[in-house]
């Protein structure tokens, strides 16, 4: 068996989800190759070569890989999938991985397994369905199994001193059907939402985008990332990349503080694996309290500043 792991990267830096999916690949067993596809990503390949468990790093570097366009990236992965006799191809269940993996799976005529939370064996996997209200155990008979991995379900692999060899691939030609125009990324001093140790999330109860500022001192004191419910994002209180839930980001921090969030099942799907959950809501019957370790019924506009001051 031999697994190909598709590295996540941004701005020439290896991104953390790669470390989690290598842990998942190690659980499958067999050799592990990491593929780095991008523009100016030599540094990413160097970083990937020092991840524990990696046997080889493959590098495809070309201008038309800028922006990780699905058409070009999937074609590059496809070009080596069969020749290198991979048994598994593993992506992170991030916006980048979810975009490319199914396109590749269809070209390989393989039934993809999305959002894997447990490797039962080399052909059997567990994954959440119905917003995490049920867990399916599925078996794949496909020759090449394409997986996306829920990163919060697997720890990060270690970095080691011994570097695995890096093999430079010939980049395929630009397919020319799509082009990358640009990115609007909100810059923030806060930690990344999916990797943060503490997350403070706001919901509709905040009432406005301006009121979201009430969460800043609390997040600052705790070194927390900021999140939001779908209701808050839809109402324009918070940007889309803050959304935690079934169709947003899935987080599992040490501490999750839900402020003014009622707790729709779609939101719970994105945070119920957090180690400790705190809910602050004025409605004592809000469903969020059913999964909170510590619930505080009260007006968030009083409670949150008091909590910030008390920490």
């Amino acid at each position, binding site marked *: 068996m031999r697994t190909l792991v598709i590295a996540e990267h941004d701005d020439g830096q290896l991104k953390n989800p790669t470390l989690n999916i290598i842990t998942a690949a190690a659980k499958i067993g067999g050799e592990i190759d990491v593929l780095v596809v991008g523009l100016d990503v030599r540094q990413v390949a160097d970083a990937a070569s020092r991840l524990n468990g990696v046997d080889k790093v493959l590098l495809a570097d070309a201008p038309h890989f800028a922006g990780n366009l699905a058409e070009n990236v999937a074609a590059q992965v496809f070009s080596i999938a069969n020749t290198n006799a991979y048994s598994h191809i593993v992506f992170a269940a991030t916006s980048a991985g979810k975009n490319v993996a199914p396109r590749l799976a269809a070209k390989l005529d393989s039934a993809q397994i999305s959002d894997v939370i447990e490797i039962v064996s080399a052909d059997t996997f567990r994954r959440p369905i*119905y917003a995490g209200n049920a867990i399916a155990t599925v078996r794949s008979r496909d020759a090449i199994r394409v997986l996306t991995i829920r990163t919060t379900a697997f720890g990060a692999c270690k970095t080691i001193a011994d570097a695995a060899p890096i093999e430079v691939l010939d980049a395929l030609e630009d397919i020319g059907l799509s082009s990358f125009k640009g990115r609007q990324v909100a810059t923030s001093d806060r930690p990344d939402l999916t990797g943060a140790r503490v997350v403070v999330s706001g919901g509709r109860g905040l009432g406005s985008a301006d009121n979201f500022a009430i969460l800043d001192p609390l997040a600052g004191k705790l070194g927390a990332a900021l999140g939001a419910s779908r209701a808050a994002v839809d109402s324009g209180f918070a940007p889309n990349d803050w959304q935690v839930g079934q169709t947003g980001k899935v987080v599992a921090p040490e501490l999750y503080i839900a402020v003014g969030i009622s707790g729709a099942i779609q939101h719970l799907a994105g945070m119920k694996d957090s180690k400790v959950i705190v809910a602050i809501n004025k409605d004592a019957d809000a469903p969020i309290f059913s999964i909170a370790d510590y619930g505080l019924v009260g007006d968030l506009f009083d409670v949150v500043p008091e909590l910030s001051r008390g920490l």
Partner: protein
Amino acid sequence: MKILTAVKRVVDYNVKVRVKADLSGVETANIKMSMNPFDEIAVEAATRLKESGHATEVVAVSCGTAKSEETLRTALAIGADRGVLVQTDAELQPLAVAKLLHAFVAHEQPQLVILGKQAIDDDSNQTGQMLAGLLGWPQATFASHIEIADGMATITREVDDGLETIALKLPAIITADLRLNEPRYVTLPSIMKAKKKPIDITNPEALGVDVAPRLETIQVTEPPVRPAGVRVADVAALIDKLKNEAKVI
């Protein structure tokens, strides 16, 4: 330009499903079913492109049991011109649906296919990308804004660190995210009008597609239950618990 849109009948998003006693799946008998919410957004997007003069026809397809005809009627009430039901009682997995749509695209030759980014039952998030891969068409997943001009689609996508914009040559595949639009409220007159719109019925055999499930579901279980927590009286008590009991701050 013709637009194809795909719609799925799923357990309504307000229903909390229960796992069957024999662990073979979740209970779907006698519970409310609706159109997958992301597909509603896709149909709305296609309809708006027709209303703004970019499209001449919107065709809605659904793959599933005879009851999926109700879902197609909803798509017709939102604004699709006609419907096609690919009728089967078989369990359909995303790869099979992508193959059915692939066969159907070859027949209808749309310039644009708009689908929901994910169905809220199996949460796979695969069908649109798979269809794009099978067709060799460009794709824009998780779309929050669509502009069509000069044979190109310029799409804003919701990605993990914000938004990005890509341009695709038509024909192309788009999958809809939550902020693409807010689907219109379907009025009684539009429901009455939808009843008169045509729905063709075909099946996987006629399209020449083998839909046999490729993933075997061994069992479906309840997720682990979180033990019940406690209510704290005030902020001081909360800080005390977090410091001394949970030890997370």
